[in-house]
């Protein structure tokens, strides 16, 4: 067992990334000594006697508190941010963004992860996110940013097209919500808060496909009106939201992977495979399978008991007929 044979004593190798000060008395005696000369190599532990003879008490303490792990066969440098320990630019970037740059002023409270968990197409999630972030280019918002444009709503005589108006206050939109049957819930949310963003978050607790896709459909309606001069009735808006959900659900129905190209199979073989799929003995079977003669099968599982704070491991060996051979249970700690 070799460990730390490449590092000399004055490199960084101790626990918490500490190193021995090169200015200690007698430093020149141990200049080229490698770390592993302080260990008992037969059982990979610190040779306490030697360590105590060479170093002062505080350094001894640090050395003896540096763990030696028996499983580690070879030393290497580890990049702590990645699980596998190899350096990557992307992880370094993430580290910089997370830890070195203070981004706390950008943080806003809200149930953000709820948006990304919605079971809707990505474009809808993106829209909801932009709504909550307040960066949807409504006319009032555009004017804020110095864009010269009228501020009137495209569907009603109001002169103030902001987030709340587009999605909640415009009479046209109210009609849409009434048709979807969600108006009650929205009114309820609106009664708690005056901010449109907060309302969206309040609704986000029960965010569902219908609600978010209706948001999308309303915004689509508004854009069609502005850019293509298309007039729509509220029923169209409701219908489009509904179709979006239906189409998306249909496109996401899980399909059984077909490992063998069908055209290469004889019809009878194909039937056999289809039958196999039907009885779910396909890929990984969901019931225990007997095995070939002369083989053993060893099933392993672990469970965790939180109130006992223990991990239990069960091992069961059976022969090819499924007859019990041996079993063992172990628990940790």
């Amino acid at each position, binding site marked *: 067992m070799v460990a730390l044979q490449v590092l000399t004593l004055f490199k960084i190798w101790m626990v918490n990334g500490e190193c021995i000060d090169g200015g200690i008395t007698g430093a020149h005696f141990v200049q080229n000594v490698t770390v592993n000369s302080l260990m008992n190599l037969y059982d990979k532990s610190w040779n306490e006697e030697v360590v105590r003879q060479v170093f002062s008490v505080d350094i001894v303490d640090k050395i003896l508190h540096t763990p030696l*792990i028996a*499983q*580690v066969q070879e030393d290497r440098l*580890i990049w*702590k941010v990645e*699980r*596998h*320990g190899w350096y990557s630019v992307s992880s370094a970037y993430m580290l910089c963004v997370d830890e070195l740059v203070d981004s706390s002023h950008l943080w806003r409270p809200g149930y953000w992860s709820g948006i990304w968990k919605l079971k809707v197409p990505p474009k809808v999630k993106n829209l909801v996110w932009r709504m909550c972030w307040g960066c949807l280019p409504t006319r009032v918002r555009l004017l804020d940013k110095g864009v010269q444009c009228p501020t009137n709503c495209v569907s009603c005589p109001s002169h103030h097209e902001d987030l709340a108006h587009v999605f909640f206050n415009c009479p046209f939109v109210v009609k849409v919500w009434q048709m979807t049957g969600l108006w009650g819930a929205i009114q309820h949310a609106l009664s708690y808060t005056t901010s449109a963003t907060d309302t969206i978050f309040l609704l986000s607790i029960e965010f569902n496909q219908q609600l978010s896709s209706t948001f999308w459909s309303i915004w689509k309606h508004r854009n069609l009106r502005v850019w293509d001069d298309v007039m729509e009735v509220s029923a169209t808006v409701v219908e489009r939201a509904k179709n979006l959900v239906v189409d998306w659900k249909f496109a996401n129905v899980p399909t059984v992977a077909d490992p063998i190209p069908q055209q290469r199979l004889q019809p009878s073989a194909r039937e056999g495979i289809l039958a196999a799929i039907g009885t779910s003995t396909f890929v*990984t*079977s*969901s*019931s*225990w*399978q007997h*095995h070939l003669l*002369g*083989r*053993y*099968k*060893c*099933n*392993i*599982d*672990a*469970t*965790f*008991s939180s109130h*006992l704070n*223990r*991990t*239990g*491991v*069960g*091992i*069961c*060996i*059976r022969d090819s*007929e*499924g*007859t*019990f051979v*041996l*079993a*063992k*249970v*172990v*628990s*940790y700690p």
Partner: protein
Amino acid sequence: MDVGESLGLHSALQWLSDMQFDNVDFETDYRLTCDAFHANQDDTYEFGCIISSCRFLFSSFFTNSTNSRVEFVRRQANGVAHVLAEEATLLASPVVYFHIPDCIESLIINEML
């Protein structure tokens, strides 16, 4: 969680290699353990250490490594081991059963049919 499951595989490998078993199919219902075992890169944490130790055990004791395998099974197919593992949390020290323990008797008989 993953450490526990990998410990399970480790103790199974250890036990069976001590008993000189060969031609064994090891089955776990924990996908991560199985995938990590077959991957060629380890993470640097406890889990990676256990897995690489598992791999070392496997390659050194099950010499006909073509004859022994580590496989993933669905949880439903791993019921016997699951019941045993639950039993294990209630026991202070490891137990080896030479006869079918009561808790898995009916399961074993069912699966023989």
